[in-house]
């Protein structure tokens, strides 16, 4: 597959080529170089151009685990990445429903992003779609949604049935009446569909469920959602996806299996208190090293928890458990809800 790297300036293009070569090679089972080597090169490149990464770099960075993982909260109000403020490119924003504010991930081009995302989805999806019918935001109207941007690249025929006022169940059903499709849905949108119209999908559909319920009120937990989706919608295949706006790569799984990252994305599980890496099989806070994040941050620290397996797959356990509220001070959620709109 030809990937246009011309959006990147001369100084970044060698790294872009190395990333591309790594993706191509690792998909064939022969990575072009060690993961750690490329990750360290990306860190050095970004530390020279991103003041946030430079500020967080203390001491020598010689190993993968030395690479500072930028906490996702910093994306809200600091310019994380190597792009100058006025540089053209793609801009994705987080939903901003959990921690208030909206994190920003900018990239010069979506060429690497889409190449990685599509290549790995092709590996993970049982059948490659020719049409998608989605309970996701329309990327034409919401160009800052990274999820919609990715799914839009799966097939040329596509329709979108989620808007600011909720799902368009009737339009969704009409679009599906023309035959099987890949159905992309957020957990919350799917819960709304199950409540409003739980009739089966046409035979042959693949249903992708992604995201948690953050910022939304629902009576369903994730496992119940999977059960109900399987029982009522009866998709031919049910797959799960985990991605973050701050990442360029995604993990795919199934309701009863761990998520598989592509070879160019690595999860690291740490003890949230001591910051020490946790052994495989033990739960901890998730960090990711994403070789596709050329313009953003090669390593990020999430507020999610998971368990890493020997094969690199990750069992996701959701958000780090809220410290059972120990005081009567504001929680993060409350602080955001309580904030007065300065424009009001």
């Amino acid at each position: 597959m030809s990937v246009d790297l011309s959006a990147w300036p001369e100084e970044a293009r060698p790294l872009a080529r190395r990333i591309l070569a790594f993706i191509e090679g690792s998909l064939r089972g022969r990575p072009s170089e060690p993961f750690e080597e490329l990750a360290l090169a990306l860190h050095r490149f970004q530390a020279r151009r991103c003041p946030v990464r430079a500020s967080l770099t203390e001491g020598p960075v010689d190993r993968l685990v030395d690479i500072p993982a930028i906490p996702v909260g910093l994306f809200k109000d600091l310019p994380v990445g190597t792009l100058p403020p006025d540089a053209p490119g793609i801009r994705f924003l987080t939903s901003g429903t959990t921690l208030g504010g909206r994190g920003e991930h900018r990239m010069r081009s979506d060429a690497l992003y889409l190449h990685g995302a599509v290549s790995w989805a092709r590996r993970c999806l049982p059948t490659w779609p020719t049409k998608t019918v989605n309970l996701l935001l329309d990327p034409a109207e919401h160009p800052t949604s990274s999820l919609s941007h990715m799914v839009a690249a799966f097939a040329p025929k596509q329709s979108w049935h989620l808007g600011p006022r909720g799902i368009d169940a009737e339009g969704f059903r009409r679009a599906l009446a023309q035959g099987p499709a890949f159905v992309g849905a957020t957990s919350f949108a799917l819960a709304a569909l199950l409540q409003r119209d739980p009739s089966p999908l046409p035979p042959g559909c693949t249903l992708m469920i992604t995201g948690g319920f953050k910022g939304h009120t629902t009576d369903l937990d994730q496992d119940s959602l999977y059960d109900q989706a399987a029982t009522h919608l009866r998709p031919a295949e049910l797959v799960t996806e985990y991605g973050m706006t701050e990442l360029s790569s995604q993990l795919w799984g199934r309701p009863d299996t761990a998520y598989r990252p592509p070879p160019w994305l690595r999860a690291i599980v740490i003890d949230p208190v001591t910051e020490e890496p946790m052994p495989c099989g033990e739960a901890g806070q998730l960090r990711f090293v994403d070789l596709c994040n050329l313009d953003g941050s090669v390593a990020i620290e999430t507020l999610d928890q998971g368990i890493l397996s020997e094969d690199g797959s990750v069992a996701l356990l959701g958000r780090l458990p809220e410290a059972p509220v120990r005081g009567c001070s504001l929680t993060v959620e409350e602080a955001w809800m309580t904030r007065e709109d300065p424009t009001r």
Partner: protein
Amino acid sequence: MTRWDEVRAWRDRLRRADIVDACDDLSPEGLREAVDSALEALSDEALHDVASLRGQPFARAVVITTGTVPTAALEWVALLLGRGSQVTWKHPAGRPGLAPLAAQLAGGLPLRITSDRDCLDGADVIVVLGSDETVRQVRAAAPKGAQVYGHGHAWSCAWVTGQPLPPDRRVPSGFTSSWGRVAADATLFDGRGCLSPVVVFTSIPLERALDSLATAMQAAAERWPLGIVHPSEAALERQRRAHTRVVGTRRRGEGWALHGVSARYVSPVALPRSVAVVSVPSLDQAVECASQWGQALSTVGTDDPTSAAAWFEIGATRICALGRMQRPPLDRVHDGVRWIYQTFRATALEL
């Protein structure tokens, strides 16, 4: 022996009790200081003043502590018992905190503890100390006709100018300077209380303020070691630390952290002994910053009495001297109300 005499005896037994088993997540020294401070507010004089207020007791009271500092219920329980109510203290399942000790030492006082959600039946007053969401749920589940008082989460800040403060016997010895008082306020309950200063605004230059407060925070940490820090707290504090490393100035010691940042990076969320310090040229700028969360602002501790009007204007409900933020008097305004009037049915005889 009157009910109030029994309450005084109960208070004295709690003062002498071994509280180590009730520690939950505070260090033994931290919990001891918190309990002593709470019991100090229940002085003979304060109890006498409350007892003299005219009113009728509620027959059955339920005090629910789902998310609060461990001593918050003590004052409520004491006053409700003193009035003559039967009191049920509902604590979170698996986290009874001080409740078992309080019940064990209650003597003949009608204090029952439970973690059972069905404890609301028959209550004619319910006090909820928890999040706004918990308050909402309890209101929905309360028996018809029951009075429900909810005290949700809030935040507090300090305004420090360096003006001298008069001596105060309730301020811990060794912490009587302005910065010492701030450290004592920020350390009690490990800084998780809604009366704890999450942000310190100061007219003093940032580096000087940080150095002074750092010295005091270290002394406080040695006297009252930090308790347990939970995973999500640790993760959020690491995030805050990274943020400060990029845009601010840090001071950090064993179990405490100061984040010198500009007003635009302030967050009113409390993390264990993690305090933002914001140096501003004028009170106006401090007030403007705090006003973003004005509706949830509880207490402002200060050494500048002339600032009170500005703080009240943006929503603060209590202004006090530094060192007294988390050591309030029994009769005080809490969440905008004089809470002691919620412990009985006020009556008036106008014949």
